[in-house]
């Protein structure tokens, strides 16, 4: 609760709204005690006095009544009626909602049908019908406004109740032999009340507006008594000659409702956990770059060269170091595998290449990514965009989520081409068919007009690959492209990628957590753990003689066909959280070869020929493995 209030207070606008509202309410409460003129005493000799005239701070209205006094009394009335309407609507609505949600079945069905029916009306029609039946008057207007809002509460509270009614503690109460009434009062209600209060706080401004509206129409408070709405309604006839009589009550409604809305928004934001975590932030067009330290010099190792890359996620006051200084390279026509558990930083590494890490919260804080020698980190967005898809293309994991669900696949393919080349309609279609053929999709002409949801998972991933091929890129980065697919489809996709690589001379960076896949496709492999590379080398050599204990354990996780009764070993424990990495080796806590010196200090990536390892006590000594 205190945390919630703190969060609310941090929101300056909500605080301002709260203060204004508090002042207005206090003013309304003490109105009877203030030395004000009588609100309903007319004095026709002093009609339409301007504001700031003697004895009438805000002037007088068409009957010479003191506006300030009427304003305060009117505010009092409007607040009271709005609040009462909210309470009535919330109570009735909650009662209906709880009954519907708790009993379910036919009761629920019947009640919710009725509620839907009421919601099929534009609300004012219902309110007008009720006032028409009951006759104009403030109390009747209150009933109308409350009744119109009952369905809203009923529907909300029912949803919450349905969720609660099947929880264990309700079942327990039932087994204990409590009556339904008792369960509702002692188990359900306490859990629903906070929701009711929040829903009420967000609708109370609305209720005040609505009752003011009915009064404005002359259907609410009747003279001489006046709330803010009827003050405005009476002033309307003198709008042009004496605008102050309209402006005074109108501004008051605006102030009250705005204060309530500010406060309500603040409450809602303070309660929304997604806002706290920054999950509602919009990712920018390219990842934010805030490099500390010098940019590494080019080494000319390959077509794509990642040097000492550091990418972090800044969430509130914590820094998660997803990638902590990774260096990689890939040559034309080569296939590099990056392997590691979920959360090891492999995806973030490759997404950083083209600035595709969601930002906020992602920030690239160091290192360089060189394509053909030129540094891409910190390159202007325009340049990055031109290279995306044309020089470096991506294939993502789950094609269900990565293709746009509402565009036909043909249009998505054509768009990929059109992003870099101006082509005509027919040419685009021809190219798209060609691409679908290249990824071995049967009947490509007909498939062009399919939506992604009309295709199978394997077909969708082929479309994903076709899209990556659209502009003949030099490098394809495949981020777990086969993880979401079943095994036979996986094999087809892998052989397709391998063929494309050979026929087109593509360089591929292939991310996976499966050593079996690496063995089929990759020339070289890099093993990542907790944001760093722990082992690197030619695939065959690493498979035959792993050096890092983590690599060895990962390989033990792969089942082998005909491998006999070998036990599949899971690695105990979880990878460390990357906002607070331990000293020394990040794998130490899960390693069975761990010794005291493993936790002492920084362990470097030692190189020997094509092999590299970051371990003090390797499974196979590096010198031996390198031979």
């Amino acid at each position, binding site marked *: 609760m205190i945390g919630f209030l703190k969060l609310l207070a941090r929101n300056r606008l909500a605080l301002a709204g709260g203060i204004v509202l508090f002042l207005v309410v206090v003013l309304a409460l003490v109105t009877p005690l203030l030395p004000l003129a009588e609100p309903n005493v007319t004095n026709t000799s002093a009609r339409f006095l301007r504001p700031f005239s003697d004895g009438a701070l805000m002037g007088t209205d068409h009957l010479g009544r003191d506006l300030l006094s009427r304003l305060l009394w009117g505010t009092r009335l409007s607040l009271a009626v709005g609040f009462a309407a909210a309470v009535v609507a919330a109570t009735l609505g909650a009662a209906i909602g709880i009954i519907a949600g708790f009993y379910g079945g036919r009761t629920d069905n019947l009640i919710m049908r009725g509620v839907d029916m009421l919601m*099929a*009306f*534009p*609300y*004012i*029609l*219902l309110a*007008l*019908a*009720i*006032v*028409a*039946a009951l006759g*104009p008057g403030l109390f009747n207007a209150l009933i109308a406004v409350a009744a119109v809002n009952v369905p809203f509460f009923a529907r909300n509270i029912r949803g919450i109740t349905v969720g609660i009614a099947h929880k264990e503690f309700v079942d327990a109460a039932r087994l204990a032999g409590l009556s339904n009434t008792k369960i509702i009062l002692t188990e359900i209600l306490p859990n629903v009340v906070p929701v009711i209060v929040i829903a009420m706080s967000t609708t109370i401004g609305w209720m005040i*507006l609505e009752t*003011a*509206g009915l009064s*404005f*129409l002359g*259907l609410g408070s009747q003279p001489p008594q006046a709330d803010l*709405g009827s003050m*405005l309604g009476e002033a309307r006839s003198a*709008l*042009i000659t004496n*605008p102050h009589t309209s402006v005074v009550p*109108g501004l008051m409604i*605006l102030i009250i*409702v*705005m204060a309530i*809305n500010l406060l309500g*928004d603040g409450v809602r934001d303070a309660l929304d956990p997604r806002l706290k975590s920054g*999950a*509602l*932030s*919009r*990712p920018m*067009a*390219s990842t934010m770059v805030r490099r500390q330290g010098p940019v590494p010099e080019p080494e000319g190792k390959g077509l794509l060269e990642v040097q000492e890359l550091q990418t972090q996620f800044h969430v509130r006051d914590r820094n998660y170091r997803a990638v902590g200084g990774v260096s990689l390279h890939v040559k034309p026509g080569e296939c590099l595998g990056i392997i590691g558990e979920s959360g090891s930083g492999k995806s973030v590494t490759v997404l950083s290449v*083209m600035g*595709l890490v*969601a930002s906020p919260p992602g920030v690239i804080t160091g290192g360089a990514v060189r394509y053909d020698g030129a540094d891409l980190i910190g390159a202007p967005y325009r340049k990055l*965009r031109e*290279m*995306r*898809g*044309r020089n470096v*293309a*991506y294939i*993502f994991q789950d094609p269900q*989520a*990565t*293709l*746009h669900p*509402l565009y036909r696949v043909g249009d998505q393919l054509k768009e*990929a081409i059109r*992003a870099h080349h101006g082509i005509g309609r027919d040419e685009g279609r021809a190219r798209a068919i060609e691409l679908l053929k290249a990824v071995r999709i049967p009947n490509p002409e007909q498939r062009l007009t399919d939506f992604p*949801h009309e295709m199978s998972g394997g077909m969708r991933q082929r479309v*994903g690959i076709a*899209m990556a091929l659209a*502009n003949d890129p030099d490098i394809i980065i495949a981020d777990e492209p086969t993880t979401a697919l079943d095994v036979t489809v996986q094999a087809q996709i892998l052989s397709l990628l391998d063929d494309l690589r050979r026929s087109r001379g593509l360089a591929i960076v292939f991310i996976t957590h499966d050593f079996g896949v690496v063995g089929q496709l990759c020339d070289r492999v890099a093993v990542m753990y907790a944001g760093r590379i722990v082992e690197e080398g030619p695939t065959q050599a690493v498979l035959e003689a792993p050096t890092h204990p983590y690599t060895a354990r990962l390989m033990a996780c792969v089942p082998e066909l005909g491998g006999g009764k070998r036990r599949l070993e899971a690695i105990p424990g979880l990878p460390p959280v990357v906002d607070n990495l331990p000293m020394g080796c990040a794998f130490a806590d899960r390693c069975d070869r761990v010794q005291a010196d493993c936790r002492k200090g920084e362990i470097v990536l030692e190189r020997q020929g094509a092999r590299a390892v970051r371990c003090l006590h390797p499974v196979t000594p590096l010198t031996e493995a390198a031979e």
Partner: protein
Amino acid sequence: MGRYVLRRLISAVPVLLGITVIVFAIMALIPGDPATAILGSYATPENVEKLNRDLGLDKPLVAQYFIWLGNMVQGDFGTSFSLNRPVIDEVLERFNATLVLAGTAFVICSVLGIAAGVVSAANQYGWADKAITFVVLLGISIPSFFLGMMMILYFAVSLRWFPVSGMWPIYGTRDIWALLDHLVLPASALAVVATGVIARLSRSAMLEVLRQDFIRTARAKGVHERGVIWRHALRAAMVSIIPVLGIQAGFVLSGAVYIEIVFQWPGVGRMLVDAILTRDILLVQGGVVFVAACYVMFNIVVDVAQSLLDPRIKT
């Protein structure tokens, strides 16, 4: 597609019936002798007797309902005693004017609201976002009738840009330009609240969509950011914006009542308020049922639009 429309039309029948039941039930709440209550205590005995006969008030409630319903299905909504003409004629004439006003406002709030929401989301936490958020907050907090009055004061009285009230000039030709001239102020005043609500929801729908994987795919393809926002994100966000438009249409229709009073617009809302004040119950009943039915039909159109927009909806 045709089947889907048909199915939606059939499913609207119980809703329409429900509306008539609710309206009938509310009117049955009128205490005392309904005819006297409807006509007021100064009504002549002949009028009371005629109304009793017209309404079939000597019969049981259920029978009364079905007679009333049967008449309405045949287009007979009864006769307004204060205007002395068939209710349906009056309602149709007034509803036309409301449609012009509310329709224009609806177009304004849809276009402006969505555009504002998209711009706001695309520049989240930037100055444009902050400015739009503030204006939106102001818009949803101001009573439309007060806003309308202030607009009259400033744009009609001070600046003399537009006429003060009414739908047509008192003298002069009734052409489209005269109508537009009279329409600008009330339609804008009416659109403000809904624009704010739509902008808010579009903004959050856009933010929701912008975090999805297919947006990253679009960026990875090299699609320009403008295309990412307006073509990819907005297209997907529309799926959750369209239903909101349907709901907001109801609010625009509701708000029209106030605006029609403020601007003396000869619409159905003003007719209803006058009818309530003169206790012309048949006119109220007929007007409410007619407008509610139109709203239900409009929502079917929204559903069909939704299904056209989202191929994943089975039609």
